[in-house]
């Protein structure tokens, strides 16, 4: 019941900090919710068709990583024409590009794959410090 108080005759001179703490906790929660929403991503390039198709020179140093679908199973991976296990791709790419100036590679995936499988390869490329990763799409391949 507590109605029989009145014992404190003097004025209470302490500041009541409880509402301030309430407000600060709420602000903390709001900022905790907002901060993780910084978007992360992998930058890629889409090769544009050459202005003059005749000037396009074939480059035998081009690195193309292929992701080949195997039905429902795990996809298989190829760097240019050589097959590699998934775990071997990143070290191999790092080895190839360690001595190169132009860090350019291309990623080509089968249309029936999940996007995650291709995103993993792009991720391997970025881990191997390849700055420019081009996506080869059907239109790029057709040269349009």
């Amino acid at each position, binding site marked *: 019941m507590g109605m*029989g108080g009145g014992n404190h005759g003097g004025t209470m001179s302490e500041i009541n900090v409880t509402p301030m703490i309430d407000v600060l906790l709420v602000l903390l929660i709001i900022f905790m919710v907002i901060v993780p929403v910084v*978007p*992360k*991503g992998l930058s*890629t390039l889409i090769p544009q068709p050459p202005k003059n198709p005749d000037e396009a020179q074939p480059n035998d140093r081009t690195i193309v990583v292929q992701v080949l679908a195997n039905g429902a199973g795990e996809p298989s991976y190829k760097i240019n024409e050589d097959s590699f296990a998934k775990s071997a791709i990143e070290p191999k790419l790092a080895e190839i590009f360690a001595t190169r100036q132009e860090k350019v590679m291309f990623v080509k995936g089968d249309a029936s*794959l999940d996007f995650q*499988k291709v995103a993993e390869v792009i991720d391997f490329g970025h881990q191997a410090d390849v700055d420019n990763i081009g996506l080869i*799409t*059907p*239109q790029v391949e057709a040269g349009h």
Partner: protein
Amino acid sequence: MTATTAQAGNDRTGQTIMGINKREEGKKINSNINVTPMVDVMLVLLIIFMVITPMIGDKVHVDLPVAAAALSMENANKEDAVTVAVTRDGRTYLGQDRVNTGDLGAKVAARLENKTDKEVFLRADQRANYGKVMDAVDQIRTAGVSQLGLLTEKREQ
């Protein structure tokens, strides 16, 4: 008789220092619910949702792939960022609007018309069909875009 009742009252209220001893023991109990804390909490929830809603509402729900080497892309959160989303069932969205894959190129080109940096962000579901993703990329390519940011989740190491 009156003196003993007053004495009993004083005993029950404990020590009376400043002589405030006129408390009525039979005073009615305050039976109103105190709504002030509830209103406080409700207002706070209101503010939280007001802050969060515009950040969540303008995005198509997709399950982004996970990548270890993902870099932060501040520009993707800007108001004028051009974001294309490909969902798990293969539908393509430009911003929040569903578009046919065939029209995507022209619409992206229209949005990029007055911008100097031709950068487009692609939010593709990790289980989206890569063929559909490539179709969207092809369409973006026809808009003259060469910088494409694939938005992912960052894998914590």
